[in-house]
């Protein structure tokens, strides 16, 4: 909008500008700014996209199964978070090697939403995005507004390492389902693989002469034993109580079956009133009632609670596999970071011990309006190769969506425990979807206003369930949010 005024006023070299001229000119400048406003009317919500500018498809070959245009530029925007950007830069190098004629524009930022939201609005998004972090753009809305490309061509393409195997068959359980919202189309590819559960110090538990408790009675007994030694049983990020579900939800699945969680995700009426939910809420409330929760926990944030846990003030912590990396500077060397699937109630539980929550992190998307969407997908295919996956795991201490890629590298204790937990779980990996389908419901309502209040002792389990069911019913009725169902 500034360009017009610059053209009109930039060409005056003569000296002796009279006062009158000056006034006239400033008046003109002021007037100019009024018509330029009309340009702005399209500023915030942008114009339509230019669909005609997409790169032409290239020739499909065995080496290029997605038919990438070999000379089309490709733009890749990465979230620069806990995993850093090196792993993606390495993968970009492979892309550049495979397509020497293509120019790759790679950038990494923490401000995903503020840099990319305007570009979505203008219809000129990049070709591949890691839509992650605090500034994540709402996936439900992006899908609902047809802003994302279906990744099925990528999943059905031969994998990078073995042309006989499709990409979809090289992925860990749950990855493909997580990318679906409604129907068969896959909108998101989660690249990192996170194991959620109960995290503890192997050394601290051994010092108590205990093993990880498989039933709730044993759990309470271990906590009682710890309490005698002045150690709290549990702590959690009280300021972000939506960490509690990391161990609570799989426990609900273990007790009542995975279909209880599906009903909750589907916002079915009375889903939260299932006896398994009630039993698990009561079990957790026992931790509060018996004083097994570290004092002050409701006022701690995630870092503070992890620090207290690393200092040995509390035994157990509901968290995800990033905790080992995130709190690396406070975890002592001999801590033996370990994760376990949550304890169940008793032997009458529906699923065996080992039922665990594991799912994808770092959601990668290819925008529907991208110029070179095939290039974005090819970049993802490269990242899902064994070499790239191993590179990621060894650099950032996390698993990837690629099933394997851990041989031949030294795993950290937490990562090793995560792999072991996944092996033990086998097919019993659950994947609750509330946190990506209904962010506000999961974090603010169920997490903070429901579970957080209950674990701080300000709600009884019955009250918490009633409140949460109310929130879920509200969300089910709210037509301003898009609703999803398990397939």
């Amino acid at each position: 909008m500034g360009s017009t005024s610059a053209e009109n006023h930039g060409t005056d070299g003569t000296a002796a500008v009279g006062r009158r001229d000056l006034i006239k000119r400033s008046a003109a400048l002021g007037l100019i700014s009024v018509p330029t406003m009309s340009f702005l009317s399209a500023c915030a919500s942008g114009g339509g996209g230019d669909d005609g500018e997409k790169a032409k498809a290239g020739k499909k070959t065995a080496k290029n199964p997605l038919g990438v245009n070999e000379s089309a530029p490709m733009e890749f925007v990465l979230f620069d978070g806990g995993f850093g950007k090196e792993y993606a830069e390495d993968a970009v190098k492979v892309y550049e090697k495979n397509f020497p004629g293509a120019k790759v524009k790679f950038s990494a930022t923490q401000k995903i939403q503020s840099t990319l939201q305007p570009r979505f609005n203008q219809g000129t998004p990049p070709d591949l995005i890691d839509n992650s972090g605090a500034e994540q753009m709402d996936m439900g809305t992006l899908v609902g507004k047809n802003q994302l490309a279906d990744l099925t061509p990528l999943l059905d393409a031969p994998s990078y390492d073995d042309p006989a195997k499709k990409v979809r068959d090289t992925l860990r359980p749950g990855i493909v389902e997580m990318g679906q919202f409604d129907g068969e189309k896959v909108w998101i590819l989660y690249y990192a693989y996170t194991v959620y559960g109960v995290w503890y110090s192997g050394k601290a538990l051994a010092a108590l002469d205990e093993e990880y408790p498989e039933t709730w009675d044993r759990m309470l007994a271990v906590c009682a034993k710890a309490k005698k030694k002045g150690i709290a049983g549990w702590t959690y990020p009280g300021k972000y109580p939506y960490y509690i579900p990391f161990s609570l939800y799989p426990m609900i699945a273990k007790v009542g079956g995975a279909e209880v969680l599906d009903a909750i995700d589907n916002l079915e009426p009375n889903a939260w009133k299932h006896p398994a939910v009630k039993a698990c809420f009561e079990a957790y409330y026992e931790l509060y009632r018996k004083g097994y929760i570290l004092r002050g926990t409701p006022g701690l944030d995630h870092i503070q609670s992890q620090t207290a846990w690393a200092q040995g003030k509390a035994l157990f912590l509901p968290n995800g596999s990033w905790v080992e990396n995130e709190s690396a500077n406070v975890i002592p060397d001999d801590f033996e970071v370990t994760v376990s699937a949550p304890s169940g109630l008793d032997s009458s539980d529906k699923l065996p011990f080992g039922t665990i929550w594991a799912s994808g992190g770092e959601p990668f998307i290819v925008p529907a309006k991208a110029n070179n969407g095939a290039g974005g997908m090819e970049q993802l295919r490269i990242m899902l190769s064994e070499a790239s996956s191993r590179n990621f795991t060894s650099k950032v201490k996390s698993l990837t969506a690629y099933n394997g890629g851990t041989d031949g590298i030294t795993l950290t204790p937490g990562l090793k425990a995560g792999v072991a937990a996944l092996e033990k779980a086998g097919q019993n990996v659950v994947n609750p979807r509330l946190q990506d389908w209904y962010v506000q419901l999961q974090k603010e309502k169920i997490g903070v206003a429901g579970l957080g209040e209950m674990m701080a002792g300000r709600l009884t389990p019955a009250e918490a369930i009633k409140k949460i069911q109310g929130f879920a019913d509200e969300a089910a009725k709210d037509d301003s949010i898009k609703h999803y169902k398990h397939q």
Partner: protein
Amino acid sequence: MQHGKYRFIVGFLAVPLGLYTLFVVWPFIQSIYYSFTDWTGLSPEFEMVGLANYERMLDDDIFWKSLQHSLLFALLLPVVTIGLALFFSFMINVGGRRRRGGPAITGVRGSSVYKIVYFFPQVLSIAIVALLFAFAYNPDSGAINSLLRGIGLGELQPLWLGDPDLALWCVMAVLVWSTTGFFVVLFSAGMASIPAELYEAALLDGANRVTTFFRVTLPLLWDTVQSGWVYMGILALGAESFAVVQIMTTGPGGPDYSTTVMVLYVYQKAFRDGQAAYATTIGVALLVVTLAFSAVVLRLGRRERLEY
């Protein structure tokens, strides 16, 4: 010179007015427009939905809670902050006892040091202040609870930001702490311009410090206080309250919605939930509240101007 006078004035005003329209008025109009649509903020497509967003807002419990907290901020924070600032600046500039050989009107001993100390928080960015206090409020190892333990009050270990009854007050305390210094400096400057003879005359008449404050200082400082009041109110409704709530509180906005404020709710709706249109609707409500606040303050505070 009379000839063309208006053209002359308009010539100078056109640029600032144009810029003001472009960058202030126009966005307002745009927001009001978007509040009648179903724009998500993530795609260029949207439709007009009439008053649906407003109907939804009136039914939204969280909106009412955030409105309630914002109003409490706007009413209480200026009273406390400006009250404290007036007291401090009076003591720094006028409230001291007369020392032998010194001027008749002076601040308390060490006032020049206090003046600098009070201004310190203003130098820190609000984000840093909020983080510092988030650490201090940590119930497990934070400064406040450690202090309580240190002086033998180990039984008294409040959860601070984790307690719905305390959290809002904790947040307000931070805002008071971080803004008082600015007003101390502002009022000190105002007090410096009050002629010393007025104070000397009051002293000769036997006025004590309280009387001097209410009869001389406050009336002559009224204009400054009033604009400070509006400024603080807008601060409490806007950016500052957003920063502290977003950085410090549970959730943020919790526990159990006990600290949520309108600006935070606007932000969450626009950038977390992808409901930009509804966010602008709340923004419009915030605009109304802010305008009403300024109007009320300016109206109530109208007094005859004193010349001196």
